[in-house]
């Protein structure tokens, strides 16, 4: 359980060796990349978890209104039940909102947890960190994103980065808190690869993935050798986490640049138009499609940020007043986009036979107030909300937990962020007793004591 402490290859002490290794490797091959598993030497082994499993986390930024979407209260007074009606679905266990018609058709493939809640502040960024890492940051300790834990515990499958965020990291949440989309105490080397581009744009490509066209292999090789000459004369850099990290990024970048597979994974033009259109020709849809391509190519964990900030942009943050969005905008823009993309992803994974191995976790920072506010919207509500799970061994068409008659609090089987993250780890095959090297090398459990996967979800 604490075996990382006995290895000299952990992130705390392994990188010192890596630069020298890299130089040796560089001297061997024509462009230094002839040892494809170069990095794996310095990764921890044996790997933890189930090598066949992967995860797509969909982060529904803004905090979707559970009462208007997945946990409707048709019998509640009008100021609570809101303007929408429930519709029947392919599941006998639950209905969904009329603004999610395509969800209804794939309801046999996903299940809902209607009793999620957390005790963090009702501030976006507080919810981001608590839902993605399973904990609130205290005492200056930033806990890692679930994907960073997966990337740390599982070896990379190939040259692709093991943990990717699409389309880019979350922006501003208004609370001035870290957003939880990072490696935290595991170090920045476990931070996700953030795409920084919109895959729905016609000229989409991963920025700067390829060297300029006219560069041949010998030129690239000379550049690297010249850089090595310079970078050998460094003082003090090996003790600086940022400097070490930059070095690691150079290795990874060179591998990525020269890997056919990696390039193909990001190339959405290889998908038929019909598939692209099924997902929706917008950022949310194309990110979902890209997440499937990346997982197919070997990425272990993809987080799709459906939106990037709640200010002056579309998101689920339906306060009803500016700079946030209105219920009408949710009905006409946000929900249809999400409905189409989410249902496309589940269908697509299913048709490709990938659904059993890919967990799709739909989470958000919180739900929304049971009562409609004077602006006709709903405000932040971490006391009760709904998360969805599909694939990766999860049974579809089920409901776990129950909210009270107005969706205000969990009425049965409350589920906390730590349990959500534990559920993800369970699906990836991690022993929840696994410990990480925490701050000061202190063993840090991957989830807090007492947090349990939501086992009813699994077949």
């Amino acid at each position, binding site marked *: 359980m604490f075996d990382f402490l006995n290895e000299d290859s952990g992130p705390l002490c392994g990188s010192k060796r890596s630069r020298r290794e890299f130089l040796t490797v560089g001297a061997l091959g024509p462009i230094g990349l002839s040892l494809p598993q170069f990095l794996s030497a310095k990764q921890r082994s044996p790997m933890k978890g189930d090598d066949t499993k992967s995860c797509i986390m969909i982060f529904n930024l803004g905090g979707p209104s559970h009462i208007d979407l997945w946990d409707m209260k048709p019998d509640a007074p009008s100021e609570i039940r809101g303007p929408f009606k429930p519709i029947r679905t392919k599941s006998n266990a639950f209905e969904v909102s009329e603004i999610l018609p395509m969800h209804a058709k794939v309801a046999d493939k996903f299940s809902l947890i209607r009793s999620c*809640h957390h*005790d963090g*502040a009702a501030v976006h960024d507080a919810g981001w960190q608590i839902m993605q890492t399973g904990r609130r940051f*205290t*005492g*200056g*300790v930033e806990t890692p994103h679930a994907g960073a834990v997966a990337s740390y515990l599982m070896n990379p499958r190939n040259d692709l*980065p093991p943990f990717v965020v699409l389309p880019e990291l979350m922006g*501003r949440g208004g*609370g*001035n808190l*870290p957003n939880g989309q990072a490696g935290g105490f595991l170090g*920045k080397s476990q*931070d996700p*690869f*953030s795409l*920084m581009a919109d895959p729905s744009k016609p000229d989409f490509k*991963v*920025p*700067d*993935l390829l*060297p*300029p066209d006219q560069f041949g292999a010998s*030129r690239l090789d*000379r*550049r*690297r*050798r*010249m*850089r*090595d*000459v*310079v*970078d050998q*004369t*460094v*003082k*003090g*850099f*090996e*003790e*600086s986490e*940022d*400097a070490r*990290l*930059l*070095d690691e*990024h*150079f290795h*990874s*970048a060179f591998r*990525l*640049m020269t890997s056919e597979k990696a390039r193909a994974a990001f190339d959405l033009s290889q998908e038929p138009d019909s598939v692209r259109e099924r997902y929706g020709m917008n950022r949310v849809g194309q990110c979902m499609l890209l997440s499937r391509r990346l997982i197919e190519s070997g990425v272990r964990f993809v987080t799709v940020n459906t939106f990037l900030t709640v*200010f*002056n*942009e579309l998101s689920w943050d339906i306060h009803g007043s500016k700079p946030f969005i209105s219920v009408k905008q949710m009905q006409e823009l946000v929900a249809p986009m999400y409905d189409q993309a989410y249902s496309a992803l589940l269908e697509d994974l299913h048709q490709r036979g990938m659904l059993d191995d890919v967990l799709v976790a739909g989470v958000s920072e919180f739900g929304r107030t049971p009562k409609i506010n004077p602006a006709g919207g709903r405000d932040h509500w971490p*006391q009760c909300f709904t998360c969805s799970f599909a694939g990766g061994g999860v049974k579809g068409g089920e409901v776990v937990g129950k909210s009270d008659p107005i969706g205000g*609090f969990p009425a049965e089987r409350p589920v906390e962020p730590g349990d959500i993250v534990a559920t993800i780890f369970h699906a990836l095959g991690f022993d929840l007793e696994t410990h990480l090297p925490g701050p*000061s090398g*202190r063993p840090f459990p991957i989830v807090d004591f007492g947090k349990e996967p939501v086992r009813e979800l699994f077949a």
Partner: protein
Amino acid sequence: MKSILIIGLVSLLGFAGAAHGGVTILPETISLKGAEGRQTLLVQETEGEVFTGAVDGVKWLSSDSAVAEVIDGVVIAKGDGKATLTAESEKGRATREVTVTGHGGEFAWSFNRHVLPILTRQGCNMGACHGAVAGKGEFRLSLRGYDPPGDFYTMTRQAKGRRIEMGAPARSLLLTKPTMATPHKGGKRLDVESREYRILSQWIAAGAVAPDGAEPAIARIEVSPDLSVLKKGDRQRLLVTAVYEDGSTLDVTDWAKFASADETIALVDEDGGVEIIGNGEGAVSALYSSKVALARFRSPFPNRIPDDVFSKAPRANFIDELVLAQLEELQLMPSGRSSDEDFIRRAFLDTIGTLPTLEETTAFLSDERPDKRAKLIDSLFEREAFVDYWAYRWSDVFLVNGQILRPDAVKAYYEWVRAGVAANLPWDEMARQVVTAKGESLENGETNFYAVHQDPETMAENVSQAFLSLSIGCAKCHDHPLEKWTNDQYYAFANIFSRVRAKGWGGDARNGDGVRTLYVEPRGDLMQPRTGKPQAPAPLDGDVIDPASPEDRREALADWLTDPENPFFARSITNRVWAAYFGRGLVDPVDDLRASNPASNEPLLDALSAHLVENEFDLKTLMRTILTSETYQRSSEVLSENRDDTKYYSRYYPRRLMAEVLHDAITDVTATPAVFDKVALNDGSFQETKFYEEGTRALELYDSAVKSYFLKTFGRNERQITCECERSSQPSMIQVLHLANGDTLNEKLARKDGVIDGMLKAGMSDGQMVENAYLKTLSRRPNEREAGELVAMMKGLNPEERRLAMEDLFWGLMTSREFLFQH
């Protein structure tokens, strides 16, 4: 400073093995009030002013058992008077005086002193339970008890009074619920046998007396031991004592909330039990009734460094004295002095955000005057680039942002900032001008500070963040959970801005021409939503401003803000400047200057702030003091005895260049001008701008919204909120890919008539070109190995290939860490 020297001396003696210690009883003040007065005691070993661990096996004696008795380490009041307690142990003997008052009088549990703290400690009023905005089970308490009268009303009057049964306290819902005698969703929170249960039931039985306005208010809390020197693995119990305005004390250890400021050094449990798990200086904060106090812990690194390392270490000024004192206490070895090559590069980049040119570097290296570093520093302050660089950095603080303001307003705002830096306006004067800004927004650029956020609450939060580095947002809805700021103080502060208005505000800030006239109404107030009444205006913990006065309340705010006695103002700016030079604030993060987040070297931050005040907030003087210190001039070389140091400045910590500086460095080296011609709008579209002529440097941009993939990728500050955290210096793979393959570096290197063509035209040999390239990029000459290997790689190439090889050489230099990092 005196205490530091004493501590330093003591630790020296300690290492020499001299027994110079004693034992003492804590807490230092024990003044028990009433029949229930009691206080847990600790007996600690001491060395000078620091505590070095708890003493076991203590025998207690009281000089007068009719006044006080000690039972199981707890002193219990027995009658009015004074008594002396004596603790006998193998380690020595200690005494402490106890005062007991009001013992014979009528005793009643107090709602504020006892009842509410119990509810808080048991978690009843936390956010997940009855402290939620909507309460729980129709029982709503104020979050962590910030509203005692409201809570008293809720507990005694609501729910038809069923929460309290004076005739039969045990039947009160207040007691049956938390003991699970009746079903309670929150689970069991209270034991029937506990002292807390007894207090609540006795309070109810005595008639559930309301909070008494005449009761002495809490003056402060004290944590003991306040400063301990311990080893990794040691444990220490903490005591928290509330001191009231009448001088009486109350043991509130059981009711305080504890948090560790750095969990890599010390952990604390909810009872105040501390475990030392690392090396360095840690702190644990205790919070009780919106009062904060700190217990500090020093855990030296496991090194044995000869004393003369410190006594002989060079000292340029008080910074070095204080840093070396701490390094000695913590047993960290200071690295040696930086080379001239490192120093010139570092001083340029940190002071003017610009690389030294080849000529400047070679002139400095060949200069043999002993005071050449001081001369260089002075010359940097006189440069135009100094003004650009610091105007840019302060624009981050002031949120000069074209996504929120119209172009002309952005320009006027920026020009105000820049003029302030150019005139070396003292920081208090800058602050005063912003805070009291009035008039037309293009004439008085500083008024745009208020156009960025137009409601009094956000104005208050921004002033607090920019000038005090305090984040007070939490207190908008409830008392700050980690700090002393209360909900009332928040609204008192925000009310200062309630009369600030401008013609043309409201709507989308980007509409129109940006011309707004800011004025102050003679009347009007902001409601405190909890009471529905205005909160009398006051600057945080400053004096109340007469609510009836028609004067601009911001004048009183500016007086309070810039008062040399204000503990936050000078510390805030001092810490910002320090962080700009060292990459890490003494308080980290720099925007979080709360009492429970102490500086890594408190005496140093105090001394630097005092120095700034003495010099009338002249930032250049502060910068000069920093730059000339040996601490700043230390090498970044890592020694085995300072490898694990990340915040005590035993060496210079390398860090990636900030986005704009890196951009300009690439532009300067390659001698190719940049083009900035678009501004990004909120909706993702772009607007043309003609503000920036070709060759404008990134550090000369007015506005963080100017379109630049490079600056965005390398993490410039987007200036949406005042926070250095908006700026990222973190290397990412996307950055590496951009350097390797992107157009910024590659296009500039390939450009005709850039740096490479210049060298080729000058007819330089391969060796000369390599040396020139090194001096231009790394501010040093190549060593023999480097020169040899690189020249060999360029040998025998035809002119066309030679040019490409030169591009590759520059690429290699400019993607190296030595170039990308400040070191």
